[in-house]
């Protein structure tokens, strides 16, 4: 089976400043269906640029990128938008939900564009509810983002990313704005989705978060310096259980034994 993401000798050079910035210098990469990849690297390593390229938000200066067999480099702005809408799901660091818009409507958003125009209002609503259910937020459908916790907001964002049944779910620092416990919860959601067959690529700079993935890629100065399968993978459910035990222990210690 052909890889979902197929990148060959991809380069990205920014010409906007005085000196051209060579952000990605020849990355080749195959990602197959069902993978769960973490892109890691220090700031300035080119991971965000690579993520934008993967997300079809930007076009490579050199090299080819095939997403689900489609060569991206020849597409124009609107074709790229349609491709993003059809093949990709996005989860951002800052959640990026529309303010004063209910969770359900946020999830519906991708269905308002692209080929989904012909879906009926009821179909759109049903599909959005399904996705909210898969991240365990059915009971928060009518809440506004400011009425939700950070973890809940990120789960709404994940549901929004899933709603068009994408080939790849791209997550840019999905746990960057979350505390450690909520981060584990969100990683749990990702692991569950991955088990259900969804391909996930995420950018993170936290090593312990990367350990929840199946494959880690490390970038430095625009090239991949390490590409390895995760040994001794963390499982969110177990980590949560551990956290719970630790908390209970802490409480017992903290409360004075009368």
């Amino acid at each position: 089976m052909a890889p979902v993401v197929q990148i060959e000798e991809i380069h990205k050079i920014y010409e906007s400043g005085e000196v051209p910035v060579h952000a990605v210098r020849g990355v080749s990469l195959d990602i197959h269906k069902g993978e769960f990849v973490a892109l890691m690297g220090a700031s300035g390593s080119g991971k965000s640029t690579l993520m934008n390229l993967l997300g079809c938000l930007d076009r490579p200066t050199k090299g080819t990128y095939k997403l689900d067999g489609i060569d991206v480099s020849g597409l124009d702005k609107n074709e790229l938008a349609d491709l993003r809408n059809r093949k990709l799901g996005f989860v951002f660091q800052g959640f990026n939900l529309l303010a004063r818009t209910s969770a359900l409507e946020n999830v519906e958003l991708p269905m308002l564009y692209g080929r989904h125009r012909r879906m009926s209002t009821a179909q759109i609503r049903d599909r959005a509810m399904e996705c909210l259910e898969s991240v365990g937020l059915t009971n928060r459908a009518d809440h506004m983002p400011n009425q939700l916790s950070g973890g809940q907001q990120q789960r709404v964002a994940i549901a929004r990313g899933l709603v068009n049944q994408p080939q790849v779910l791209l997550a840019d620092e999905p746990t960057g704005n979350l505390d450690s416990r909520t981060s584990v919860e969100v990683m749990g959601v990702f692991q569950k989705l991955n088990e259900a067959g969804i391909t996930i690529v995420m950018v993170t700079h936290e090593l312990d978060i990367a350990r929840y993935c199946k494959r880690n890629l490390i970038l430095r100065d625009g090239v991949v310096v390490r590409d390895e399968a995760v040994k001794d993978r963390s499982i969110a459910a177990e980590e949560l259980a551990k956290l719970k035990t630790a908390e209970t222990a802490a409480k017992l210690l903290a409360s004075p034994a009368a």
Partner: protein
Amino acid sequence: MRFSSTIRVALRALRRNKMRSILTALGIIIGIGAVITVVSMGNGTKARIEAQVAALGRNIITVYPGSSSSGGMRGGFGSSVTLTVEDAEAIAAEVADIDGVSPEVRDRNQVLANGLNWSTNINGESPDYPYIKNWNIVAGSMFSDQDVKSLAKVAVIGKTVVDQLFPNEDPIGQTLRIRNLPFRVVGVLDVKGFSLFGSDQDDVVIIPYTSHMKRVSRRANISTILVQGASPEKLDVVKQHIEDLLTQRRKGREPDFTVRTQEELAATATANSEAMTFLLMGVALVSLVVGGIGVMNIMLVSVTERTREIGIRLAIGAHGRDVLTQFLIEAILLSLLGGVLGILSGIGASNLASIYMGIPTLIAPWSIGVAVGVSSVIGLCFGFFPALKAARLDPIEALRYE
């Protein structure tokens, strides 16, 4: 994006900043309100003038004599007396679709009666005159064709003359003297009031035109010919016929007459008020443009504020066109809101103007249509630039915007 959700999103965005939306719309409200008010005032004045013109009579065509010229001096209209009774008779006999003809002879003279005297207008007319002028006889009756033929010394007088010469008695059957000739009063005209041009229409004595020409003014020509068309639709055709007939009767000589319809008279009378209306409308339109700039300003602010939202929409598959439409619809709704409120305030203002300032107003239905059209066009024009700015955003930049 589908249209219904675009509208919903736009309404939500406007509701989010209620105060700002209303203040922005205020520019449009004032502009549209001013247009509606000004047009309704102009319209009301025009209707009032038209009513006054209609009171002059029904479908009247007037034939005026041409200008005279002697030794290089050219007089204006009516300076020569070139119309004859025969011209009037020819019109009556040959032109179709007319209901009445009255050769008019006008003069001012001192009138005596009862030991009182009064200087007034002495008009020679035919018996058709009250009918043509849509003017009722309230006592007695109009003189007859027989009176015209026999140069009878009979008169029908207006209310002002009654007040001046017969203050305390019934004027019917009384005698008044014009140039020392006794005329018997056979009828009294209804009160008509002042004309469009400010003269007292009731200050008049009407006698048969034949009596006027032979006994009073002793002239061979008539002042004007009044013709009543049978219907307003045929007035122009009748006018043309009269012109043709009179030209033919001049046998190749330079036409020495002018034919005017009542509509033309009305047009002259309303021209001034229309010019004023257009001037004021121009001012109001300028304020609309200023309102439009306000809309543009706020839309630019709105685009900047919502850069991230635009970035999200673009990232998940919105085309530039979808974003463009969204902001355009928002701008159009904003100015339409202003338009609707402007229409209401315009209607209110013109009612106040007519109640407290006595200015006649009449809301023109077309002005409401135009107001709605103009305000959506303003939204479209002034919203286009901000919307284009939004549509051209780069999703990566927009998502990173703080």
